[in-house]
């Protein structure tokens, strides 16, 4: 379900771009005009101008500074100030340039990462607002709203959004899937939630028979109910429809291991391994399938990879965490 879980955009709840310094308003930026501004500005001058609110005049010089031979701290400052100015001016192309350059030149820098998180969040919010402004009654706008409600745990209004969309456009692809997913996530969905969700995924497949995600989740539901044949069929179908769907291959192989069809489990697990070689679960399941089908040497290799990945899991080297 990982690839198909979707990312709920922040639409209903606007999260502002939380600068640690005072935010320059767009109006300020437009009104202020610096004397002698131009593309030939020095970096220091451009920084000063930007800090005074003259974004329009300084942005080219700041971008140039990012590729120039200047001290890294100055370059970093130019990037951050330039990014802020780009967003203030709502110049998204420039903002993306600054994001790319900062991310590349200061990879792993916590200050820069903090800025990037907020900048991407800000851009995401702006796009959401644009969608709400330009097509408020469209299916994508309602979808985004529903996803945001889900993210906030407002299950009932989110469900109503999905149901409203289905009423409006019964054949819109993806909506039954999202409603099914909500029913599985909602803690108060009731004891029949699994069955209701299953019906939604089946309806999704009527609308869009090629929805690999729906096949996958139906496979998970069948696996939970220990309906192994159905689970195997669903997972294999999901993998067939989306050849890059590593989780589907893994689940397919894992089910075959469960029903002791070890030899049959090896091919899908090999594909899963190729798609996501760093996933310890794949190596463990593959090793088990190999071991139990008599391929001892290959199994030992996979167990060794699993061991190395297991010991390298982030928690092993992370700072102390609670129990």
């Amino acid at each position, binding site marked *: 379900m990982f690839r198909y879980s979707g990312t709920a955009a922040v639409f209903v709840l606007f999260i502002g771009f939380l600068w640690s310094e005072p935010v320059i308003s767009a109006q300020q930026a437009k009104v202020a005009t610096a004397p002698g501004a131009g593309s030939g500005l020095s970096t220091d001058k451009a920084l000063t101008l930007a800090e005074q609110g003259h974004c329009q005049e300084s942005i080219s010089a700041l971008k140039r500074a990012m590729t120039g031979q200047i001290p890294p701290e100055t370059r970093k400052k130019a990037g951050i100030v330039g990014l802020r100015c780009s967003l203030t001016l709502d110049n998204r192309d420039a903002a993306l340039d600054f994001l790319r350059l900062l991310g590349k030149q200061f990879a792993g820098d916590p200050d820069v990462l903090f800025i990037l998180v907020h900048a991407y969040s800000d851009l995401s919010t702006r796009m959401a607002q644009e969608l709400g402004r330009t097509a408020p009654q469209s299916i994508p706008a309602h979808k985004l709203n529903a996803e945001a409600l889900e993210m906030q745990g407002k299950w009932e209004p989110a469900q109503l959004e999905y149901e409203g969309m289905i009423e409006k456009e019964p054949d819109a692809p993806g909506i039954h899937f999202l409603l099914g997913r909500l029913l599985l996530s909602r803690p108060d969905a009731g004891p029949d939630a699994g069955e209701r969700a299953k019906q939604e995924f089946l309806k999704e497949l009527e609308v869009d028979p090629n929805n690999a995600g729906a096949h996958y989740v139906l496979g998970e539901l069948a696996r939970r109910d220990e309906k192994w044949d159905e689970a195997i069929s669903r997972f294999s179908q999901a993998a067939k429809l989306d050849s890059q769907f590593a989780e589907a291959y893994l689940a397919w192989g894992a089910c075959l291991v469960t029903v002791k069809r070890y030899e049959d489990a090896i091919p899908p697990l090999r594909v899963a391994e190729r798609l996501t070689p760093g996933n310890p679960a794949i190596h463990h399941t593959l090793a088990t399938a190999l071991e139990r089908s008599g391929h001892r040497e290959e199994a030992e290799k996979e167990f060794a990879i699993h061991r190395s990945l297991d010991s390298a899991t982030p928690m092993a080297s992370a700072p*102390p965490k609670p129990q």
Partner: protein
Amino acid sequence: MPSGIRTPQLTRRDFVSKVVAGALLVPRWPGFVLPEAPQFPFEEILPEKSGIRWVHSNGKSPEKYLPETSGAGCAFLDYDNDGWMDIYLVNSGKCDFFTPNPPLRNALYKNNRDGTFTDVTEKAGAAAGGFGQGVAVADYDGDGFSDLYVTQYGRSILYHNNGDGTFSDVTEKAGVAAPGWASSAVWFDYDNDGRLDLFVGRFVDFSKELNKPCGIHDDGRHHYCIPKIYSPMPSWLFHNNGDGTFTDVSKESGIASHLGKVWGVVATDINNDGLIDLWVSNDTVANFLFVNRGKGKFEEIATTAGVAYSDAGRARSGMGVDSADFNDDGWMDLFVANLDREMFAIYKNNHDETFDDVALPTGIGKTTKFMSGWGLKFVDYDNDGDLDLFLANGNPDDLISSLHGEVTYEEPLMLFHNTGKSFQDVSAQSGPVFAMPMSSRGLALGDFDNDGAVDVLISVNNGAPVLLRNNAGRHNHWLGIHLRGAKSNPDAIGAVVTYQAGDLKRRRVKVGGGSYLSSHDPRMVLGLGKREKLEWLEVKWPMPGGTTERFTRLPINRYITIVEGQEKGK
């Protein structure tokens, strides 16, 4: 009755008849009858009734030293050989990070044979006093009296039972101090020489100096750390030399080649080869399945056996363990409790040194998803002939609910009834005690009132132990057997008992240890259901005895002792 069989001096029936007779003499209120309280399968015997007023103290500190949350264990044992189960309780006393004032001590309670117990610790001289963890009981020297091995954070203690109600600390002479943080220990005869050897599980490399602060809240409160941040350590295996001393064979046996963070251990025979293996749980690293290959060597096969990790290949937080043939196919299965959101595992033996986790199909997985388990044991609590499962739970982190709303620090006990196809959670119907959240740790089984219904003792971290009387077992028929090895090891660990009562045929293996930091009544109670006759019973003694003895015309609903080699062919 076979000559090798003897009965205890006072049976439960005698006890009950005396109590009833006494009650008849007490005047009653005329015309006023209190409604009879419903009798649940398990009933808590409160301290004011049992006389067990000892309380565990964990030395809880703002620094949240990890050993504070792990202890401690408990045991049922018959230290004075009167046929009645006594109780031993472990406390967490003095160590490098804790100096209690007044000092803390363990407790030995003598069974008064009337449902009450008397604290005899001082007289017995088995108070310990260090930061205790667990206890393993066995007659290591074959003198007929149960000895105590008390594991501690720091240095463990071997108490030799002098046979006169007292114990002597013989740790130094025996050479089994096992310095470090010892957790669960188990007695078993790994080399089949007829003498009980000792495995001592070791947790992480820890000391006051190595303590790390974890998950600090704004108000300065700490969480207990996930043990991932501490280094794993090798466990100990001590060979019993037969002269009161032991030899450390941890390295040459292969045990010490594997670094772990051991919590639970059970001695079992997973491949029916007569050599006792060890199922060992580890916290945050892969579990161990040490298969005994003979000649003093163990091979660790947990990964290939499928019991090291979760199905997703993740090391879990292995806590309590047990082993039993829960599906009656003649092969010993395995159980391990894990932490919340990991699910407990019940491993079905595939008869080829591999196992499948059947937690989901048996119903165990879903029910235990948010639980954290410690003490646990397979037990036929209702004597219907099927092995049920008793689980003691509690999260190790007292601030866990601030991290995960669906998880609590104190958790209720759980009872699963074996339906033959799955395990049904019958906790809600089994008594009010199953609704009580507790910080349970150890769990010991023992029939303290000798009525054939196996009772349960729970040790509680930083709290009073909980004694539960089983009211369900006596509604079915049963036979209790106390096996005494002669050539074989004295406690007959590894003996295989097969019995037939009407259409019921069962095979039970006497395992060593199991649960968490705890030790159990050495007697086996064989459930017969409603069947009123036991056709026959066979005991296959472990090596070096190795013989099979068959008994017929055995009594039921009582305890008998079977001594190896004293009766044949009946």
